[in-house]
């Protein structure tokens, strides 16, 4: 055990966990990585391309190497970073991307063959023979693809979304964030303080310097306690702010521990935000700098100070700045043997506690599955082997400015830090502390920025007293890589080396975007947090330009990867979208109806009865019974819009292609609605209940868009018209009652004082009536089926009862209830168009209703419907089809060809839009659109359906298969 004294782990809470099947012990407060290091496990994974053995480079979310699969079976999460995985009892993790064991990976052969796998090698080969790409090369490449593995089974966990509002969101609960939160919190602002870590305090938990008379972590605990007592402050641990979106909206992902929900995806609406995300240390590249045990100096300090874990006893340090010396002091204090501090600066600080090599660099390393020693080139040019089981590398700090780039903000170069710092940030965002390149006085910076924001928001705030921090300014001499012959890794996960960047330069991939794309630098799961700058620095050397002149890389959301399930929340599986139920749904379910999804609605498709074994039997029965006697259908889903106002008639005149001004009160008229481009948008009936009151119906599919369109017309085009719109789709349960006995059935429902005889209530009449003893209702004599038919509407709560009552009184007529299939059959038999024909590319002319487009008034779509391409004589027109041989069938979606000639696109005459079996006629019938259709009735054509390899001779007929004169519906 390399566990040392101290740290923030809870030694009273031991935890057992497994890695690659072996059981280890850790403590509450550990991460998987810290616990493994404390158990002397440095090897945790394999790299992507060369399968190099890897251990953690970092102690945070920027980790490129220590990726594991967390959990087992359906709970397995691939590519989890061991460095941030909070240890819990029973945690089980496995390493990834190897064939054979982690320590003996057969795929490591790739490392030996690495010269052949230089950047972009795959663009240059695998092209011959052509067929081999799909048969051989690509399968091999795909076999090697990816890191972790999905279980392949549905994710069993629950996820949720939530929404928060605040004055100020503070991102990061390190020193700057805590100072800012306390300042704004005391001022009474609504504050959210979020941090990805489970232990808040940021670097305060990993460093040994004091704040006033206490340790940094103790100060953090005090501040957090006060924040917890403030009702206006919400502190969110384990919460990553993953993205900054427009107008102060932030995305956050909270890991829930022990609850019923695995993760909560918060959308946070802010007035202001303060980014206090700290900084990430960067490595220095040298040959074989990727061995397990080589990590960032700051990570070594975190493991030692926060987690009391030393990855090895013999530890060396490689640094270009003073941080390396801090690492050496901290580790030595915990009992490590510092074998050397290799400082690339000639003016390195001195120490008597351990050897310091000023002006020296590490040029290579050794150790098969973990670091054993490093090769150091001294200032004198002499090289020396130094034993080390771990090497702490400090190359300087990169501010964590990622969120400032999420709205395409471009950072600028800071020569003192030799790194990019924020320049512009999203509107409303300030940046404080190390995230802003401010490496000292970060508490004051956090407080000052909070005060500035409070002033901005008009909230009175006072300065808070801050402890004195011991700190020293940054002193750094830039060094990004050590020149040499071996491979020096920049992007460790994707195996991008200094040589690869040089090759990219040699081949002209010089723009930073070309560099990234050609070499895959920065494209791994860490998105280049520790590698981008190094890559740029190498490219800058090659081009002879400065780093900022070579390019900048900006970051896109998410800050760290977010599970797809979290973005879906509860809107997944069956709850993907809500379900709308019709008023007769419960009754229909009792009858064993088969339901079908129609938009959000569930509608009864047909009602199987005992003995019926196919859907066709049920549908045929429903159709025949309706046409013979009477059928009932729930048509509530059709959109219904109340149109009122003194100018309601004028308004409808403009919205519909045909006229409504002259429609008499108590009458209904069919209306055709066009888009402004002259195509048919929707159709439906409109009833006039009073001079200033109409009810318009829409198709089910277009209910929402037609209402929106009518509001557009009302508000944006003709606000001078006095007209008001209200959706009443939900207010009324509406049933179609169709068939020769429809009236007789309804007479048993409608209260006696209302005369619904043919004379009193003729075809296209409407009225407000009462039913069943005084219940207010509306009755419309309209027909979609072609039969004598009514639609009756009652307040929705009575819909269920009305259905039951009608079925009851309908028994004497053998009434049936029919579903959407029978509805569809009857409308095709009648030749009514529906969704399949109103497909957005058909005009009134196409549908045989050209005469309805009035030329004597202004209406939407009238002008553009006259364009030559839409009025050509050979344009598509609606026709009916019937098979020449009545026992033949064909399919909707078939194309029509002349009886003779080649079957190809050039000879395409049109297509079948709708098709059904007509039990009334005893054969299949179809509707469709063919060129010059009106003139082709009687022609025999071929309905071809190559995707199902069928071809049927059909005769072009009138689209009205039954009762073309409309005698039935007027009966």
């Amino acid at each position, binding site marked *: 055990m390399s566990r040392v004294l101290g740290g923030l782990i809870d030694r009273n809470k031991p935890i057992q966990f497994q890695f690659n099947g072996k059981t280890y012990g850790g403590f509450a407060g550990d991460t998987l990585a810290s616990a493994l290091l404390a158990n002397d496990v440095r090897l945790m994974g394999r790299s992507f391309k060369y399968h190099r053995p890897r251990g953690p480079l970092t102690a945070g979310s920027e980790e490129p190497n220590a990726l594991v699969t967390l959990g087992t079976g359906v709970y397995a999460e691939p590519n989890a970073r061991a460095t941030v995985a909070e240890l819990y009892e029973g945690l089980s993790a496995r390493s990834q991307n190897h064939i054979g064991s982690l320590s003996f990976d057969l795929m490591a052969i790739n490392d030996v063959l690495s010269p*052949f796998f230089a950047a972009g090698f*795959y663009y240059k080969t695998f092209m011959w023979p052509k067929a081999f790409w799909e048969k051989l090369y690509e399968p091999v490449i795909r076999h090697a693809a990816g890191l972790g593995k*999905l279980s392949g089974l*549905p994710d069993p966990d629950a996820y949720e979304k939530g929404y928060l509002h605040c004055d100020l969101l503070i991102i990061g609960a390190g020193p700057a964030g805590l100072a800012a939160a306390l300042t704004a919190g005391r001022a009474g602002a609504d504050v959210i303080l979020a941090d990805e870590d489970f232990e808040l305090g940021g670097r305060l938990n990993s460093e040994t310097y004091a704040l006033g008379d206490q340790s940094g972590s103790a100060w953090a605990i005090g501040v957090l306690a006060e924040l917890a007592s403030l009702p206006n402050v919400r502190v969110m641990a384990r919460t990553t702010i993953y993205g900054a979106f427009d107008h102060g909206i932030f995305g956050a992902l909270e890991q829930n521990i022990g609850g019923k929900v695995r993760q909560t995806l918060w959308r946070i609406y802010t007035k202001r935000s303060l980014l206090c995300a700290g900084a990430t240390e960067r490595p220095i590249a040298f040959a074989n700098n990727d061995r397990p045990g080589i990590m960032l100096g700051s990570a070594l300090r975190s493991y030692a100070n926060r987690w009391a874990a030393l990855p090895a006893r013999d530890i060396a340090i490689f640094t270009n700045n003073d941080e390396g010396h801090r690492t050496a002091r901290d580790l030595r204090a915990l009992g490590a043997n510092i074998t050397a501090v290799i400082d690339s600066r000639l003016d390195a600080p001195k120490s008597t506690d351990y050897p310091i090599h000023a002006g020296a660099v590490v040029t290579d390393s050794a150790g098969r599955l973990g670091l054993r020693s490093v090769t150091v080139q001294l200032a004198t040019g002499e090289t020396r082997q130094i034993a080390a089981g771990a090497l702490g590398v400090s190359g300087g700090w990169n501010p964590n400015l990622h969120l400032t780039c999420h709205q395409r903000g471009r950072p600028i170069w800071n020569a003192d830090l030799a790194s990019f710092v924020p320049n512009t940030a999203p509107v409303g965002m300030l940046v404080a502390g190390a995230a802003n390149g401010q490496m000292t006085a970060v508490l004051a910076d956090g407080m000052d920025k909070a005060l500035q924001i409070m002033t901005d928001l008009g909230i009175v705030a006072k300065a808070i007293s801050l402890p004195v921090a011991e700190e020293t300014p940054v002193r750094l001499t830039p060094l990004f890589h050590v020149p040499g012959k071996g491979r020096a890794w920049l992007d460790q996960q994707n195996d991008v080396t200094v040589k690869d960047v040089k090759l990219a330069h040699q081949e002209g991939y010089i723009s930073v975007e070309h560099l990234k*794309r*050609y070499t895959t630098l920065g494209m791994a799961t860490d998105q280049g947090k520790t590698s981008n700058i190094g890559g740029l620095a190498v490219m800058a050397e090659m081009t002879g330009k400065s780093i900022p002149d070579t390019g900048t890389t900006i970051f896109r959301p998410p800050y760290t990867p977010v599970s797809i399930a979290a973005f879906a929340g509860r809107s*997944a599986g069956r709850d993907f979208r809500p379900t709308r139920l019709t008023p007769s749904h419960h009754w229909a379910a009792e009858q064993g109806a088969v339901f079908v999804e129609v938009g959000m609605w569930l509608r009864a498709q047909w009602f199987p009865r005992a003995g019926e074994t196919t859907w066709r039997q049920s549908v045929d029965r429903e159709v025949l019974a309706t046409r013979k006697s009477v059928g009932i259908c729930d048509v509530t889903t059709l959109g219904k819009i109340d149109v009122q106002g003194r100018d309601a008639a004028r308004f409808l005149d403009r919205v519909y292609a045909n006229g409504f001004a002259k429609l008499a009160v108590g009458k209904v008229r069919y209306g055709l609605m066009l888009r402004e481009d002259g195509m048919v948008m929707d159709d439906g009936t409109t009833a006039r209940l009073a001079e200033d009151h109409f009810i318009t119906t829409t198709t089910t599919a277009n209910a929402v868009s037609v209402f929106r369109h009518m509001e557009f017309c009302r508000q944006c085009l003709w606000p001078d018209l006095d007209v008001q719109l209200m959706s009443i789709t939900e207010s009324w349960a509406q049933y179609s009652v169709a068939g020769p006995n429809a009236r007789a059935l309804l007479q048993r429902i409608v209260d006696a004082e209302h005369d619904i005889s043919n004379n009193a209530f003729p075809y296209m009449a409407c009225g407000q009536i009462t039913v069943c003893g005084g219940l207010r209702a509306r009755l419309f004599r309209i027909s979609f089926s072609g039969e004598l038919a009514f639609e009756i509407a009652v307040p929705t709560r009575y819909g269920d009862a009305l259905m039951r009552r009608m079925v009851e009184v309908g028994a004497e007529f053998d009434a049936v209830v029919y579903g959407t299939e029978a509805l569809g059959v009857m409308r095709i038999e009648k030749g009514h168009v529906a969704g399949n024909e109103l497909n957005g590319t058909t005009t009134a002319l196409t549908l045989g209703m050209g005469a309805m487009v009035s030329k004597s008034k202004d209406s939407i779509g009238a002008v553009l419907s006259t364009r030559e391409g839409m009025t050509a004589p050979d344009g598509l027109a609606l026709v009916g089809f019937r098979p020449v041989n009545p026992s033949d069938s064909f399919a909707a979606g078939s194309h029509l060809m002349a009886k003779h000639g080649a079957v190809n696109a050039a000879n395409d005459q049109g297509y079948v839009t709708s098709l059904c079996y007509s039990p009334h006629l005893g054969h299949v019938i179809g509707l469709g659109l063919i060129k010059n259709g009106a003139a082709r009735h009687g022609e025999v054509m071929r309905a071809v359906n190559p995707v199902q390899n069928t071809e049927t001779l059909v005769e072009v007929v009138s689209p009205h298969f039954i009762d073309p004169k409309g005698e039935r519906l007027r009966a």
Partner: protein
Amino acid sequence: MRYNALNVIKQALTGHKDWTPAWRDPAPKPHYDFVVVGGGGHGLATAYYLARIFNKSSVAVLEKGWIGGGNVGRNTTIIRSNYLLDGNEPFYEFSMKLWEGLEQDFNFNAMVSQRGVLNLCHTDAQRDAYRRRGNAMRLNGVDGELLDTAGVRKMAPFLNFDSARFPIKGGLFQKRGGTVRHDAVAWGYARGADSRGVDIIQNCEVTGFRIERGKCLGVETTRGYIGAGKVGVAVAGSSGQVMAKAGMRLPIESHVLQAFVSEGLKPIIPGVITYGAGHFYVSQSDKGGLVFGGDIDGYNSYAQRGNLPVLEDVCEGGMSLMPMIGRAKLLRMWGGIMDMSMDGSPIIDKTGIDGLFFNGGWCYGGFKATPASGWVFAHLLATDQPHETATAYRFDRFRHGRMIDEKGMGAQPNLH
């Protein structure tokens, strides 16, 4: 140096010393016979085919930033030719055929991978529409199969068949559809064009057109005036901005389309799958990332980034269709600017200005069209005649009511 296995091996053994830049970095000349504005996929392909097919030796491509930095550099890499309408299908099939021989043609492995494109349907009406489309494809000599639920299950057993809000009723499958390594397309065309004498000039923004008496004589650029016999503009995403410099208003709006990629995962999704009851489509790259997307954000934008509602909508669709991806993590999201046209189809046409030609309006379907777009635009530039597969892509189709509206959504770009 030619790209082949032998040279890769030779170079590997000798330290990769002899590889040369994939394209030169020439200074602009004062005049070219053909100036192609826009160093994206379409512009580079146009230049390549001008040289390769039409033997034009004086060709320049002007790019304001770095080549391949537009939508060819940020898309979801899908190729397919499963269109419905006569105006489109032959063109996209022409493109598919070019993809099928492209790598050998331009000597660059772009990883054209025909693992299939499966469009799922969830209602009877949708299945009828797919049948009509599949038949249109077959009538044009294109492969297409209509699958029932069992057929879909066989191909993609991991889809949600058991607890779906919108059950899968079948699908339209194009076996020859698939994906291509998108950046490599730009680089392959650039390298191929460069090797045939085309000048590819990066960091050269066109700031205006020199137009005299109705004729375009050349372009003003940030690197000076460049005269041209003919100017072809292929800057989809920025078409409105660039053509405004020539005084033109277009039937196009610029919108943002987001795309998403997950961390690398071992292969689990075979080809391209699109959800028919939500906005979600997905494929898995050769590196293992799930590459997925959905609908455009829906508002005019040049910001190259989108917002949360679409991201969430897309993932909801994904989790509804294939709940096994829940624990895969989204790694990166980005937004591209789309030329959304008024009928969802592109424009490749002369303009009212002599010598000035336009190629744009690709909506979010431009990537798959890259080879054919380049070829037919080169054809138009070289011969003044539209290529036989692109005769419908005219400006005046809106004036005359001959829209090519696959989805039937009408003159509202954000619905296409």
